[in-house]
Every structure is written in C-alpha cells, then in structure tokens.
C-alpha cells in the first residue's frame, strides 16, 4: 500500500468518525424528534398487531415475528426457498455422500470435552429461542442459526465420523429440510383450503380471523391458570423454519467438510 492511499484512507476514516460522533452528540438519529415520525405502514403494524379485530391482529406480543410471518409471510417463505435451493446447489456441486473422516489429530482432549459439554447447552438455548419466537425476539431462522453451533463444534473436535454416528446422515438431514419447507407451505395454504371448502373469503398465510376473512388458527389456549399464548400459525411456522434452517446449516458444513478441507 502506498503512503498516499494510506493518508487518504486515514483522512476518510477520521471524517466518518467525526460525522458519526456528531450525529450521536446532536441526537439527529432515532433518538431525536424523528422517533415519533414512523412511516404510515409501520404505524399501522405497530399499533394494529396487539389489538383484536384490527386489520392485522396476530395474537402475538412480538411485532417483528408477527410482521415477518403473518403480514409478510410469502416473502419469508420465498427467502426460505432461496436458502433451500442454495443448499441443494451446494450438495450437487460438492459431495455425493459424506465421507466419515477420523478424529483430527491436532485437537486435544480439552477441546473435545468442552465441545461435548457446550453442545447440549447450545441446543437447549436454540430450542428456547425458536419456541419462544412469538413472545421474545428470535424465531425459526435465529434458533436454527444458534443450533448450527453444536454440529460445527462436534465437527471441529471429533471429526465427521462422530457426527455421522450421532445420526446426522445426509438423507436424514435432507428429508428434515424438505419436510420443514413443505410443512411451511402447507400451513400457509391451510386456511385457503378451508375457506374454499366453506365458501368464505380466505388468504394465504392468514393467521387470525380478519374482518373480511373469518377463518384462523388457534391463538391461545385458556387454562385455569391463565392463557397460554400460541400466536396462531406463528409457533408452527417457527418450529418448521427451525427444522429447515438447522438441517440446512448442518448439511452445508458437512458437505464442505467432506469435500473441502483436510489433506488429500
């Protein structure tokens, strides 16, 4: 790198730093008066989601999850399909079947034991993130992304033979992935089919009954101790997305490991 480019980059970085500090100091960002001026669409969702009988009620206190899986359900479904096709392409290019590599020599006993200890904790955390996706931030994709830590840890510490012996086979993972995507589509179409049979209005990815379309999934279960919030389709979609994403990340890492790394 020449010294002139060095100086130019330094000046640019310093300018951007000064600009960001200035923005932080004079509170021009979201902390200023702009915070109350959301766009109309955002206002509609933010005020409408927790209110029953409104245009976009979804029986869930979490606005983000209800927006991405209820009002923007088709978008999210196509994003899941894009990831699905990417994994299929990776498998097609890289690996026919997964090779069972022996335990890598360099890894010591300490790393192996720690990876074995941490993996169950990570799996429990990922399950909680995915199953509470309609109550707290998180959801299917986030839970699946946290779940992927456990196979990668076991892969690094113990080699792919351990993972294959634990049941992370290629066909099992692929069928889990296909099942996840298929069940998401079926859950989305479910209301449409019921609406066609009953002869009333219905939409794809319809979660709760709307004024125009009186069909919906179970929002909560009433028990003597209080309501258990299910969020209609949200909990189902989160579970299926969790299956699909967790299996997909594991498949990608296993395919890259069995074809790429290591000595030939």
């Amino acid at each position, binding site marked *: 790198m020449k010294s002139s480019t060095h100086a130019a980059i330094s000046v640019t970085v310093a300018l951007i730093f000064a600009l960001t500090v200035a923005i932080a100091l004079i*509170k021009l960002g979201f902390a200023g008066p702009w915070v109350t001026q959301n766009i109309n669409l955002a206002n509609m969702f933010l005020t409408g989601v927790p209110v029953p009988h409104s245009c976009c009620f979804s029986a869930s206190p979490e606005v983000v999850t209800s927006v991405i899986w209820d009002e923007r359900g088709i978008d999210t479904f196509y994003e899941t399909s894009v990831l699905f096709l990417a994994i299929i392409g990776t498998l097609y290019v890289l690996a026919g079947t997964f090779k069972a590599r022996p335990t890598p020599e360099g890894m010591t006993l300490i790393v192996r034991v720690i990876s074995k200890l941490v993996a169950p904790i990570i799996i429990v955390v990922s399950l909680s*993130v995915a199953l509470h996706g309609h109550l707290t931030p998180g*959801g299917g994709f986030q839970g699946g992304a946290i779940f992927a830590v456990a196979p990668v840890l076991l892969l690094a510490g113990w080699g792919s033979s351990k993972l294959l012996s634990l049941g992370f086979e290629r066909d099992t993972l692929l069928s889990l992935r296909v099942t996840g995507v298929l069940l998401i589509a079926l859950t989305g179409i479910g209301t449409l089919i019921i609406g066609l049979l009953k002869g009333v209005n219905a939409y794809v990815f319809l979660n709760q009954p709307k004024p125009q379309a009186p069909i919906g999934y179970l929002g909560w279960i009433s028990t003597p101790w209080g309501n258990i919030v299910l969020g209609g389709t949200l909990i189902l979609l989160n579970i299926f997305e969790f299956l699909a994403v967790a299996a997909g990340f594991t498949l*990608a*890492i296993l395919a890259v490991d069995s074809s*790429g790394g290591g000595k030939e």
Partner: protein
Amino acid sequence: MIHIPLLIGSIGSTAALIAAILAMFEKDLLKAIVLSGIESIFTAFLLVVLLAPDLLIAYVAVGLGINSVILIYALLRGERYEE
C-alpha cells in the same frame, strides 16, 4: 444530554470500517478472514445499539460463524499468501 449507546455505536462502527479497509489490503489471507470476523463483531454491536436483536443473532451466525468456517476450509485447499 448525550445519548450514550449511540456514542459507543459510533466508535464501534468506525472500528468496523477500519477492519474492513485493513481486510481489503491484507496479503495474508488468514489474517483477512480474522479481520472480516472483527468487522462482523463490531457490526453486531452496532445492531445492538440500534435495538435489533433479531438481526443480531442471524448476522453473527452468518457473518462471523459460517463465513469464517467455510473460508478457512477453502483456504486449506489453496495458498495462504497472496502475491
């Protein structure tokens, strides 16, 4: 009154910018992978400051985890030092 998280966020985002520029000019590719990981961590910090925990979890998994792991596997096949 100073908005403290936004101020720290400006420091973190500048560090992310510096890490990205250094990764661009780095000849040692393993170092470049680690530098891109640093960039991901500071961007994740910026996401916390901007109150987006959903994006944070997905971004950390993809930008810091899967990206680095797959690039290191790719680097095991190839040459470590660029011309």
